[in-house]
Structures are given as structure tokens and as C-alpha cells.
């Protein structure tokens, strides 16, 4: 990818700020420009759950692109999907000096000590996706995250609508100990409990493991002759299950929904394989963290004063284009077109 020209870069920054709900006054822009001129690249450290996960990989690419645009040197500390390994990585991170750091914790509370050490050194620490510690236990700079409950509610609602409010539904969970999964389960229940004719027939966890999903779903297909809908805690699991379901020739019977809105899943929605996914914007959270860190480092934004303690990285459910034909498209969700293609474009350009 070639270097974008200056005006485009400005556009990017502005749209970034706008979409984060921060009113960017001219004074701010002036300072930002001045900072650009300063020529000292910022040094930032990021840690994520594990690059084996598509969501994290997408975030890393985003941060690197935006870091290049903003002149921030990024150092990556991979958690390798293992609490102890992430702790060691963040311990190593804390032994160095940074302009700011951003961390997606694998497990709430497991990184408190090194994070506290960095905060004590005056380094702004931005939490991404998962809380670093229960509220109040740590003075992080801000927390940028999706709303798991809400995303799950949207997708579940879409599934329930699609099957007409009654039938057998399956929820395939992530790992039971994962707070994101717990939020998604909560959102699922919030919706289904309002429909007495919906029966939850299975809610086994598959630990985010696609091989386990295949196994579990072969068994479910055998055990239940009628499954109307299935909600998955992420898209990877939904797509793996789709494959098994299709092999069993039951893809028309079961309506599937996932969460994350990663490109393959969005494409699957467009192709009609999945009925819905929710945008859990990896790119958005990551560049959001980068920009927040940038402001903290360059303009000394103070936590709780200049920047709120929580920034929602919201995302709508991605549904297929409406089948209704109407000359009043403004009355339909997403103008009847569906958010998919637009989202794909944004993802390709590290925006969402």
C-alpha cells in the first residue's frame, strides 16, 4: 500500500475523531499538526490475547497502519492465548518506558501488577476489549470495548425474528470462563426469555475451538432432528458449524448467527450462509486505543477529565440485504441494502 497523501491522512484522523464522538476543535487540530512536525516518533506497546485469533490479527494490522500514519512506533507483546504467557509478556513490557500502552487482557485481573507499575511511572494504559481489572481497582487511561450483551442481543433478536419467534435454538458458547462469552450468553438469554415458544436445546461450550465445534455439531445434528436456529459466540465457530451442517444437508433448516463481523463472516452473510453477525470492530477498538494514546502522550489528556472512563466501540448487526422491494428505502434497516459491503470496505481500509 502506497503512502496516502496528506489530505487523506487528515481526513482519516478527522473521521476517526468524529466517530469516537470527540468534538475536534480547530485548536486541537493545530496542535496535532504541530505534533506531526515534531518528528519524534512516539513509542507505544500493545498486547493482545493471541494473534492466532483473527480478531487480534486484524487489530494488529490496523494499529500498524495507523501507527505509520500517525508516526507511532508500535511494539507488540503477544499473549499467545495463555494467561501466564501474557503476564510474562506484560511484565517485560512494564520493564521498559513507553509513551503509552494498550492492552487486551485475556483474563480480568491477571495483569494488575505490571499495569499498575506502568501507571505509577506515568504511562497511560488503555484497556481494549476486556477490562484490566474490576472497576475502580486500577486507574487506567480509558477502556475501549464493544458491548457484548448488546451485540448478542442484536444477533439473537435477528435469529428469533427469522424463525418467527418459535422453535428450537442452540447456543454454542466460547469458553465458560471468558467474560466476553459470559456477556454474549447474557445477551442471548435477555432475548430468548421473552419468547416462550423458543426452546434452548443446547448451550455447550466449544472453547472457541473449531475442531471442537465440528465435533459438537455432528453430535447435535444427530441428537436433534429439528434445530431452527443457532447462535455462536463468534464467527469462526459459526462458520465451522456451517460447514458441518451443510455436509449433513441441513443448511436450509438452521438459521445461524455469529459475532465479530470479520470479513469472512460478513461475506458469509452476503452469501446467505449466515443470517447475522455483529460488528465487533477490531479495527475500531485498536485505532481508537492508538488515537487515545496519541492524545494522551502528545496533548496530555487526563483520564476522567479529558477522556471518559469508557468508550463504546459500537457495532450494528450485519444482516443480509432486505428482500422487500420498496420505493421508500429510508424506512428499512440499512436502507434495505445491508451494512455488509460497506463494512467490508471499511475493514479493508483499517477503519472498522
Amino acid at each position, binding site marked *: 500500500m502506497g503512502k496516502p497523501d496528506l489530505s487523506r491522512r487528515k481526513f482519516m484522523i478527522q473521521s476517526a475523531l468524529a466517530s469516537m464522538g470527540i468534538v475536534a476543535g480547530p485548536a486541537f487540530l493545530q496542535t496535532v499538526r504541530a505534533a506531526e512536525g515534531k518528528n519524534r516518533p512516539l513509542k507505544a506497546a500493545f498486547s493482545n490475547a493471541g494473534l492466532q485469533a483473527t480478531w487480534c490479527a486484524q487489530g494488529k494490522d490496523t494499529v500498524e497502519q495507523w501507527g505509520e500514519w500517525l508516526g507511532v512506533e508500535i511494539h507488540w507483546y503477544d499473549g499467545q*492465548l495463555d494467561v501466564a504467557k501474557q503476564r510474562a509478556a506484560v511484565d517485560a513490557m512494564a520493564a521498559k518506558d513507553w509513551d503509552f500502552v494498550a492492552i487486551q487482557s485475556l483474563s480480568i485481573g491477571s495483569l494488575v501488577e505490571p499495569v499498575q507499575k506502568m501507571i505509577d511511572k506515568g504511562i497511560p494504559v488503555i484497556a481494549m476489549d476486556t477490562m484490566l481489572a474490576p472497576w475502580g481497582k486500577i486507574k487506567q487511561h480509558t477502556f475501549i470495548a464493544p458491548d457484548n450483551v448488546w451485540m448478542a442481543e442484536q444477533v439473537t433478536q435477528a435469529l428469533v425474528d427469522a424463525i418467527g419467534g418459535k422453535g428450537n435454538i442452540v447456543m454454542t458458547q466460547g469458553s465458560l470462563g471468558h467474560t466476553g462469552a459470559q456477556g454474549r450468553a447474557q445477551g442471548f438469554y435477555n432475548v430468548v426469555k421473552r419468547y416462550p415458544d423458543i426452546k434452548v436445546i443446547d448451550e455447550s461450550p466449544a472453547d472457541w475451538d473449531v475442531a471442537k465445534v465440528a465435533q459438537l455439531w455432528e453430535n447435535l445434528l444427530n441428537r436433534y432432528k429439528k434445530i431452527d436456529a443457532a447462535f455462536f459466540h463468534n464467527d469462526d465457530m459459526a462458520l465451522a458449524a456451517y460447514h458441518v451442517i451443510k455436509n449433513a444437508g441441513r443448511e436450509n433448516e438452521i438459521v445461524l448467527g455469529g459475532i465479530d463481523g470479520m470479513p469472512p463472516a460478513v461475506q458469509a452473510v452476503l452469501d446467505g450462509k449466515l443470517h447475522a453477525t455483529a460488528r465487533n470492530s477490531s479495527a475500531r477498538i485498536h485505532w481508537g486505543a492508538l488515537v487515545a494514546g496519541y492524545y494522551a502522550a502528545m496533548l496530555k489528556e487526563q483520564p476522567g477529565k479529558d477522556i471518559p472512563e469508557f468508550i463504546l466501540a459500537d457495532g450494528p448487526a450485519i444482516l443480509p440485504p432486505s428482500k422487500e422491494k420498496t420505493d421508500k428505502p429510508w424506512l428499512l434497516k440499512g436502507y434495505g441494502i445491508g451494512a455488509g459491503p460497506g463494512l467490508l470496505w471499511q475493514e479493508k481500509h483499517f477503519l472498522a
Partner: protein
Amino acid sequence: MANEPHDSPNPSGRWRTFLAKSREFAPVWTLLALILFFSVYSDSFLTLENAANILNQVALLAIMGTGITFVLLTAQIDLSVSYMATFAGVVAAYYTAGHLPQPWPIVAALLAAGALGWINGVGTARLGIPSFMVTLAMSLIASGLSLYLTRGRILFDLPPLSETLGSGRILGVKWLVIVAALTLLVGHLVLKYTRFGRYVYMTGANPKAAELAGVNTRGVVTAVMVIGALTAGLAGVVGIGRLGSATPTAFDGMLIDAIGAVVLGGTSLFGGVGGIPQTIVGLLILGVLRNGLDQVSVDIYMKTLITGVILLAALVFNILFAGRKEA
């Protein structure tokens, strides 16, 4: 060990033979007991469809397990098999996405796995590094290569052959099951009816004596590590077809189950004892256990616990039939 008294308390020849046989077949009784157990507790368990299901589910483990049987028979271990499977799957998908003509992506995948297996073998047999450590390092290398090739993404372009073998059917039977059965069969024939197979047993039973009998034990160990890697690679190539995608961690989690199934069947970690028939029984025990628990309704928070308890019960049951062995 020599001259050790053997406790065969019964004098009658026929009864003794029966007992000895039933001891040898202890895992089979355990398997039957498990099947009985789940048949009582679930009405969807004992169906033809579910039997087919169980076979599908153990098929990948069976392919890997064939290689692992060879490895364990020589008293080595391979902790890298599941990561090799993932890696081979990634390679096959990566080159398919890169438009290498078929079937070269699959050939590349198997070659790549074989090459890593050869390094395992050289490290173990020539350099004398404990296979536990070489293959541990190799698991990092294979897993690292998967991550590096995919850069964390999921690959959806698969070789058509993988798709067919992983998801297709022929005459109503899954190709996957046929591939697994053939792999086991070839493994069995090699172990039982070729000199190489006998060398594998000899090397595991007493490496020093095998060497004195003229066996190139280093060569055998090297070959066995390559076989372990190749079957893992095959499992990966077929497995991506089953999952419909290649992810950078797709089969990583199968390691313990794959080795566990082989050991459960009765192949010793200390070499020389066991074989493919044993591995098949072990695979089925594990397959029935995992499948059965999906067929009964249990509190999801208790499922792992119950799996563990039933597995432990099965092991104890096994011993009741087999009689106590050396600790």
C-alpha cells in the same frame, strides 16, 4: 525382570487361555461397558447414525494415532503431532490460495510435515536429545510456521481433494472414515508383517538388544518420527476439508486426545508393547466417551468433571479386567 513369578492362579489350561485372552481384551470390555452405559442414559446414542458419527469424530484422531502408535512403540514420544497437523493444513490452504496447481499444495503440505518429522528424528536418534524436548521445540516451530503463514487469519481456499476427503461421501460412507480406516490398516500391516514393523517393536522393547541383533535402531527411530509427522500431516490435510477452513490453531488441541487414545488402548509409553488393534479400541473408547456426553443432558458446568470421572472409572474398570501390571 527375568524369572519373575507369574501369578496365573488357575491350573486349568482352557480357563487360563480364556482369562489371558480376556485380559488382553480388557479395553474391549471397557468399551462395551461404556456403550452400555450411554445406551441406557440416552436414546439418541445407540443409533446407526450416531455410530457413523462416532467414526467421523475419531477419524482424524485415528490418522494421527496411527503414527503415534509407531512412535510410542519405539519408546519415544511426539508432542508436535497436533501442531504438525495444523501446519500441514495451513500449508495446503496457503498454496491453494497462492494458486499452486493441485495436487501440489497437498504434496507440499505432506513434504513439509515430513521434513519437520525428519528433524525430530535426527534430533532424537542421531543427537540423542530426548524426544520429549525435540518435539516440544518442534511443536513451537510448527505452530510458529502456521502463524507466520496465515498471519493470524483463517484460510478458506482449500484443495478440492481436501474437501472431498474431509467432507465428501462415497456410497454413503464418509471419505474421512475410509481414509482413517486405510491409514490404520496400512499401519497394522506394516507393524505386523514387515521387517521394519518388527524392528519398531524390537527397538522399543530393548534398544540395546535390537542393536546387537543388527537393527539400525537410529534409522528406525528416525523413520518412526517421520511416519508420525506424515500421518499428522495427512490428518491436517484431510482435517481442513472437514472444518471447511484452515485456521492457525485448528488441530492444536488434539494432542492429548491423540496420545491418550493410543495409551488408553494399551500401547505402552515405554515401548515394545501395543499395536494398531489396541489403538483402535482406545480411539473408540475416547470417541464413545466424548460423543456419549454430548448425547446426554448434563449441566454444562459439570461436563468436564463428568468426563474426567468416567474416564477414570473406565481406567479402573480396565484394570479389573486386565489384572494389576507393574506400576
